[in-house]
């Protein structure tokens, strides 16, 4: 009896010790603090308390808006221009599906597509004979109706399913093998088909981070360098007379010049970043905190130009998400990483 009474009084004392804490804090925080000092410090850190404060504010007391500066920022991005390259597994999978399809579809009847004794018909016959009587152009020597039709899988290390090889085979097939007179062309008369541009551009090879034709299969973001040497997205303080998106547009014009065709995607911020204020011992402000709201923008054409920028930026770069991770301070990147696509 006595022991149970002792236990209940101990529990009551524990509960009594923090009367001003809100309900959610009381339930989430542990009921068994080993050290009062450590607990107080933990609370102070969790609630960003001033030095003399021991308990967090009850929500409806003094607002702390005066301790923060409100800032707007624009995350200007260039959408990827190319689809991503396929993985070797995807290549192999699609190749297998094509061979499987060879077995299941109806046969190709060339008389339905080529009129007899025309140049196109002769062209088809020449190429068909060169492929060894195979209709498919890029599937290797696979006879879908033959005795070895079951043997449709590629062996490890085979390059038959490679995307570049397939494209080259198709482009080779596209060149005309018939002369204008309707005769078979000699090897020196064949005009090769124009090859498409490579996926890797000149800017990629030089790693020119100020060019927009770099990393064509990934999103690029505009990062600018402050006078202090720190990199960030174009940011500025907001006046009381403008909205977030208006401020974002103003910041973009002020930072990167008017020589861009841009589009601010929405009026809702896509990310936010908070820098906590620093207080002196007497609870007066040493430095104000910052609350930055990021808006999303797209660049369609043009290029950034920092020559006449009024925000004091020294340099700019167009970078991918991975490159930004190395450039930005970690807490800053953590705040904005979730709005950036993986690619």
């Amino acid at each position, binding site marked *: 009896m006595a022991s149970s009474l002792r236990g209940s009084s101990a529990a009551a004392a524990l509960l009594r010790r923090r009367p001003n804490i809100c309900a959610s804090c009381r339930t989430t925080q542990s009921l068994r603090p080993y050290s009062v000092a450590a607990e107080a410090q933990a609370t102070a850190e969790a609630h960003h308390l001033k030095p003399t404060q021991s308990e967090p504010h009850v929500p409806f007391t003094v607002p702390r808006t005066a301790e923060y500066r409100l800032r707007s920022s624009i995350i200007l991005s260039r959408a990827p221009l190319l689809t991503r390259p396929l993985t070797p597994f995807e290549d192999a999978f699609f190749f297998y599906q094509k061979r499987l399809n060879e077995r*299941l579809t*109806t046969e190709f009847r060339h008389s339905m597509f080529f009129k007899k004794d025309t140049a196109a018909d002769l062209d088809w016959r020449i190429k068909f004979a060169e492929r060894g009587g195979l209709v*498919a152009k890029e599937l290797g020597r696979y006879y879908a109706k033959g005795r070895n039709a079951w043997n449709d899988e590629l062996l490890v290390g085979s390059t038959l399913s490679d995307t570049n090889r397939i*494209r080259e085979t*198709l482009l080779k097939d596209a060149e005309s093998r018939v002369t204008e007179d309707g005769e078979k062309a000699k090897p020196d008369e064949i005009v090769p088909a124009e090859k498409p*541009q490579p996926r890797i551009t000149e800017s990629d090879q030089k790693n020119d981070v100020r060019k927009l034709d770099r990393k064509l299969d990934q999103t690029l973001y505009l990062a600018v360098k402050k006078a202090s040497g720190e990199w960030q997205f174009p940011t500025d303080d907001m006046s009381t007379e403008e909205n977030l998106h208006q401020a974002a547009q103003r910041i973009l014009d002020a930072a990167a010049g008017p020589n861009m065709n841009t589009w601010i995607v929405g009026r809702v911020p896509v990310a936010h970043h908070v820098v906590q204020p620093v207080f002196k011992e007497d609870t007066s402000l040493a430095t104000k905190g910052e609350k930055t709201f990021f808006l999303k923008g797209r660049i369609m054409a043009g290029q950034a130009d920092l020559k006449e920028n009024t925000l004091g930026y020294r340099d700019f770069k167009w970078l991918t998400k991975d490159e930004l991770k190395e450039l930005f301070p970690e807490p800053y990147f953590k705040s904005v990483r979730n709005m950036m696509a993986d690619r």
Partner: protein
Amino acid sequence: MATRLPTALPRRPTTSTLSTFNTLAPQTTSSNIIPTLQQTQTRNARLIKRPKRPYAFTQVIQLSDGSTFTMRTASPHSLVKSTKDTRNHVMWNPSEKSLKNIEVDEAGKLAAFRERYGRGWDAQAPKPELGAEGAEDAEAMASKKGGDKKDAKAVETSFEDKFNSTYDPLGDLISQYAVGAPDDKGAKVAKPKKK
């Protein structure tokens, strides 16, 4: 009886194999009945005909800006070059000036036509909307020039003359005709007026 696959054999041990009952008789699940019927399940594989599909080739499509992609198609041509698509159409490239319908007059035929017949046949340019901004601009221009109210008024009237007056596209042609007309005709017209 034909030879059966193991899967087609009856699973339940049957007491009599001599009975010649109809196998399509309704099966009973009740265990009270002595299993006299020869219950055989038929699980023959049936041939399901696949729908007929045309033969599919792989084709490279090259868009007008040179970008390519491959797709599956019934066409036996392995390369198709597009001449007009989203990459060189005005709707998808609103900022591209070269795609806009700008008058090309390399041979000077349009200039020759205008010299002979005037500009009366030109398509009418759309009127720019002169709202509050336009008025402000006009005032700003006036204040820059001299700051007089008269100037501002003059600018306003000039804007009105340009855009608000109903512009007759054939007026130019008619006036030119009247200018070029011989004098005697004009005199003949003028005479009855005097009388």
